[in-house]
């Protein structure tokens, strides 16, 4: 029988294997038991974990998972916008949608209203505070982008682009029209006084008043310096943060210039005056155009140094355009750069209208004051143009309508004046004339901002 020896060898081999397995198992179990003693422990409470698993009977485990899942979903729901939405959020989201609609449907300043509209929606998505999501939470991405608004970085960059776009030749050809730009600034100071009567503090009133300048970047610049929620008032209280409402009011009324201005024009200027044809402006030499930004920078900033960031960049941009040597820089400033800044500015200003901060009595008052300031500014320009006409004769008479473009909503108010003049006389083209008070309004409102800043900061 030759099978037997094979069998024994098999049994021996099996025994050997079993020994090996037992040895390995024994060593492993020993290691597990003495692990805490040897200091191999990786988790802090392994024993607790083991006991808790062991303590749970098998039947309860299924139910536990289910409750945990429900609890998880509940917790997730609590983090969603549906759970945290308030009426304020919904109203603001609707306003955002209206802004977008106005921008697309009626073409009211779409480059502003669409970024702001979407910004309003972004800023009003309800969320649980503390996860670095919102624009007012330090460290959030939106907060970093908002930095440019709070510290007034974006407005001077926008002014650089505006300077590189603006042709001051109609102003150089007819310098007396500059006074119309000054006259419209009565809107700024009138609103400033109105805000004081409504109980706002001096710096807050100054920031609200600048809405009358009809200049978005200037309004943001001034409110970031005066009503930023950081400065301390003389009576020890902190100034309110009004950047959001002021910026929204300024930009939305600027977009509504074609709605606000024409009725006032028709009210204050009679039909005969509306038909006045103005002498075409003389051609301006390149030398004059180049000298203008340098001289205007020197004169205006020596008078109102606080407006330096705005006026400095405005005239710098204009010199880039007119020098004839820096076309590349001018081109970037008036296209890519201003586009980038507009995108960031629009969306962050929109997002700053977070409902809990934005929907307040103050905001409503600011909106009312903003509307009044536009009306006062338009009236100031129109009446001053009529006043100027008393001293001008014959050919030199100006069409009082162009006074309305003294508010610095460039170039919208000039376009509105042009359209209004065409209604009375289809061959009276006022656009070039209206651009003069329009651009001087930009300079005027920046100077006014500088004055308010130097008085109130």
């Amino acid at each position, binding site marked *: 029988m030759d099978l037997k020896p094979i069998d024994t060898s098999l049994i021996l081999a099996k025994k050997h294997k079993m020994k090996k397995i037992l040895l390995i198992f024994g060593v492993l179990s020993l290691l597990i038991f003495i692990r805490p003693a040897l200091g191999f422990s990786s988790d802090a409470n392994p024993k607790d974990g083991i006991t808790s698993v062991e303590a749970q009977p098998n039947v309860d485990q299924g139910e536990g998972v289910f409750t945990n899942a429900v609890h998880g979903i509940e917790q997730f729901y609590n983090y969603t916008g549906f759970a945290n939405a308030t009426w304020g959020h919904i109203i603001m989201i609707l306003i955002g949608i209206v802004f977008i609609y106005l921008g697309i449907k009626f073409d009211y300043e779409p480059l502003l209203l669409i970024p702001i509209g979407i910004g309003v929606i972004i800023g009003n998505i309800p969320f649980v505070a503390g996860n670095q999501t919102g624009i007012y939470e330090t460290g959030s991405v939106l907060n970093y982008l908002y930095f440019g608004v709070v510290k007034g970085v974006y407005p001077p960059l926008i002014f650089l682009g505006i300077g590189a776009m603006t042709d001051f030749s109609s102003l150089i050809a007819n310098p007396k029209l500059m006074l119309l730009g000054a006259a419209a600034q009565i809107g700024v100071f009138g609103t400033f006084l109105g805000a*004081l009567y409504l109980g706002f503090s001096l710096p807050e009133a100054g920031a609200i008043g600048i809405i009358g300048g009809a200049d978005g970047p200037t309004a943001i610049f001034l409110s970031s310096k005066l009503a930023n929620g950081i400065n301390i008032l003389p009576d020890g209280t902190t100034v309110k943060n009004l950047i959001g409402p002021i910026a929204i009011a300024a930009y939305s009324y600027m977009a509504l210039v074609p709605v606000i201005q024409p009725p006032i024009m028709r009210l204050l200027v009679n039909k005969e005056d509306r038909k006045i044809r103005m002498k075409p402006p003389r051609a301006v030499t390149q030398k004059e155009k180049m000298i203008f930004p340098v001289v205007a920078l020197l004169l205006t900033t020596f*008078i109102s140094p606080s407006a330096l960031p705005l006026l400095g960049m405005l005239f710098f941009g204009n010199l880039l355009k007119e020098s004839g040597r820096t076309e590349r820089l001018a081109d970037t400033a008036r296209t890519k750069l201003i586009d980038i800044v507009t995108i960031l500015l629009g969306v962050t200003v929109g997002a700053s209208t977070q409902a809990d901060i934005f929907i307040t009595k103050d905001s409503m008052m600011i909106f009312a004051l903003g509307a009044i300031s536009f009306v006062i500014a338009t009236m100031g320009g129109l009446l001053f143009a009529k006043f100027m006409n008393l001293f001008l004769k014959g050919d030199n008479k100006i069409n009082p309508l162009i006074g309305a473009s003294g508010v610095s909503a460039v170039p919208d108010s000039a376009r509105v004046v042009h359209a209004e003049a065409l209604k009375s006389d289809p061959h009276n083209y006022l656009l*070039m004339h209206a651009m003069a008070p329009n651009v001087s309004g930009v300079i*005027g409102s920046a100077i006014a901002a500088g004055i308010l800043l130097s008085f109130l900061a």
Partner: protein
Amino acid sequence: MMLLNMSLQADQISEGYVILLTGLLIVFSALLILSLFFQFGLPLMLYVYRIITKGRDKKIKDIPMSADENFTGEVAAAISTAIHLYLNEQHDDENAVLTIKQARKLYSPWSSKIYGTHQKLK
């Protein structure tokens, strides 16, 4: 307390009037100075500049004082619009027929490996 608040507000309003008047005055004066400069100062400066840079053979009275009255901004605008339109139009006249040129690449050490794979061994 209320009395104090009221007096504070009255103070603020009186200060507000001061800012209103001075502010308007400064804005007006700034733009007035600017307009006066461009009305009178700049033409004078340009005239002086012409005198300085005039050639020896020219006399001061030869330098024209005023610009061409007939050449207005409107004429300039019309000319520049015409040029702009013309330059824009040029683009439209571009030949729309596309031709694909066959490019035979010369030997270059940069492409020799690829080149080599396409050559038949002899």
